[in-house]
């Protein structure tokens, strides 16, 4: 492997390292090493990658980031892996089996000719996705494993994203790796007969991951934006491969792009949540909307209408509307009518009620709310009361509106949401 060229000395502008370079490279490298070590040794792959990144952190300040970080890291990983095996107490008793595995595996990884190097990394990441999203793992384990191995997130970061303890995340990951070992899960694309359902699971995990990042203002805003970006990146990887490129995958990608487009406008400069009606649409990211539209067209091929198609269609309606008033609510209602048939969740019904109100007036919306199946579950959901409050306000009933906003305030936990509800309540209580 060629040695790294030194950084241009004396240049005034130090090129800002590409955002999340370390995290991205971690994901690529774990996938590559797992291909060669085997899924049973996933933890070894993660340890070796951690080691290689530590070296990069220590050496690159002096040398500059190499032209091909992946190649540098892989070479470092090879040099360090054996050393790591000899010294790490955890692996000492299995050295006899692991050392030749590492030697042959990494020798093989480094012997790949350059044009195939990138292709192999992409393929490895795709296989890794199927490993992480193995149907035998619980959804929260699938998401955690995806974030750790493909996303290069550390356990503290995953814990922060899910608002649970590091210990809980660590345990979740240990159990997931154990499951993969015990069930001898292989590093490969699923067989043709199982491909469709397996891809559906991957989509579901990426959807969960995206929504985790998209939830309004919980925890570290930057971290949440990273989750959305990673979900898009991985969905793009899936869509780029024949095994994953179904209309539903493209619909999911479209949905993610449309929602991402609106992220910059969702909070105002003081960090308060803004309703769709209040958002400054000039702050919506037009490039993301374009990306969404690019995915939407091919997603319409074929007969399947997945929930992602419907949600993408709804998101597209919003993104394409020049203003809240000019939104095609009839079209949105049509799509919600289909969505509630597919997805019996109270949340879908709640959103549909809003669409009903826009098309048929606030009292119709309130009736739709009352008719919602699973109303009992919704009673504990602060947004249900917030929506009802807004509809009562629209219907000219401020006293009933205030009652709903008070109920919502009792249930809302996040500061940004409580602040938003307090403003609404003040509006309802009037001057």
């Amino acid at each position, binding site marked *: 492997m060629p040695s790294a060229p030194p950084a241009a000395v004396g240049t005034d502008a*130090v090129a800002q*390292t590409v955002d999340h370079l370390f995290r991205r490279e971690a994901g690529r490298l774990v996938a590559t090493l797992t291909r060669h070590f085997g899924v049973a040794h996933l933890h070894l792959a993660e340890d070796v990658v951690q080691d290689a990144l530590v070296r990069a952190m220590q050496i*690159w*300040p002096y040398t*500059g980031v190499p032209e091909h970080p992946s190649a540098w890291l892989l070479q470092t990983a090879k040099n360090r892996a054996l050393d790591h095996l000899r010294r790490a107490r955890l692996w000492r008793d299995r050295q006899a089996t692991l050392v030749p595995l590492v030697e042959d595996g990494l020798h093989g990884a480094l012997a790949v000719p350059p044009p195939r190097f990138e292709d192999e990394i992409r393929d490895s990441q795709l296989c890794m996705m199927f490993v992480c999203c193995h149907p035998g793992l619980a959804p929260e384990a699938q998401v955690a494993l995806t974030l750790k191995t493909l996303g*290069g*997130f550390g356990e503290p*970061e995953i814990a922060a994203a899910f608002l649970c303890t590091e210990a809980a995340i660590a345990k979740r990951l240990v159990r997931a790796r154990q499951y993969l070992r015990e069930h001898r899960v292989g590093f490969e694309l699923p067989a043709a007969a199982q491909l469709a359902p397996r891809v559906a699971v991957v989509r579901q995990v990426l959807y969960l991951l995206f929504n985790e990042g998209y939830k309004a203002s919980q925890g570290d805003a930057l971290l949440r934006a990273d989750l959305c970006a990673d979900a898009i990146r991985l969905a793009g990887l899936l869509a780029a491969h024949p095994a994953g490129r179904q209309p539903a995958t493209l619909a999911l990608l479209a949905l993610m792009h449309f929602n991402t487009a609106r992220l910059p406008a969702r909070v105002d400069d003081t960090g308060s949540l803004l309703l769709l009606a209040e958002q400054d649409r000039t702050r919506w990211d037009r490039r993301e909307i374009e990306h969404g539209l690019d995915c939407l067209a091919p997603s319409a091929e074929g007969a399947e209408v997945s929930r992602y198609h419907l949600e993408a269609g709804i998101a597209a309606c919003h993104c394409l509307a020049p203003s809240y008033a000019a939104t095609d609510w009839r079209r949105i209602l049509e799509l919600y009518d289909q969505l509630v048939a597919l997805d019996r969740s109270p949340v879908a019904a709640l959103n549909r009620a809003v669409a009903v109100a826009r098309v048929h007036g606030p009292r119709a919306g309130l009736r739709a709310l009352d008719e919602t199946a699973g109303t009992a579950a919704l009673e504990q959901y602060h947004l249900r009361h917030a929506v009802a409050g807004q509809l009562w306000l629209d219907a000219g009933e401020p006293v009933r509106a205030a009652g709903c906003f008070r109920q919502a305030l009792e249930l809302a936990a996040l500061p940004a949401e409580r602040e938003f509800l307090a403003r609404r309540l003040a509006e309802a209580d009037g001057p």
Partner: protein
Amino acid sequence: MTQTSAAPTYLFVFRHPEDMPELTPEQMQQSYQKWADWIQSMRAQGQYLAGEPLEENPARLLRGARGAQNTDGPFAEAKEVIGGFMRITARDFAHAVEIARACPGLGTYTSVEVRQAKPLPGV
């Protein structure tokens, strides 16, 4: 550029505790960026001469005739390990210390020892 007598150079010796908490890739990137910015700023001002991070192992301490007594690192009596060093030029020792103060590791676990090297004979 020739000098009739070379200005003194200074050495930074970086130490950190043997057991440091594990960083996430994101945290490592931030750390890398801060160190890179610091070194780049020294280069831009013509202060940076040389530097290297050091391997934690192998490490061996020799004592006695022909190094008869020797211990392998990490060394029990040292609570810290030497992580690396840098050689810089500065106006004077106070200036060298001022430059060292900007070391990004100081905010976390790194200590910086600043020493003055004897000036080399004039060229």
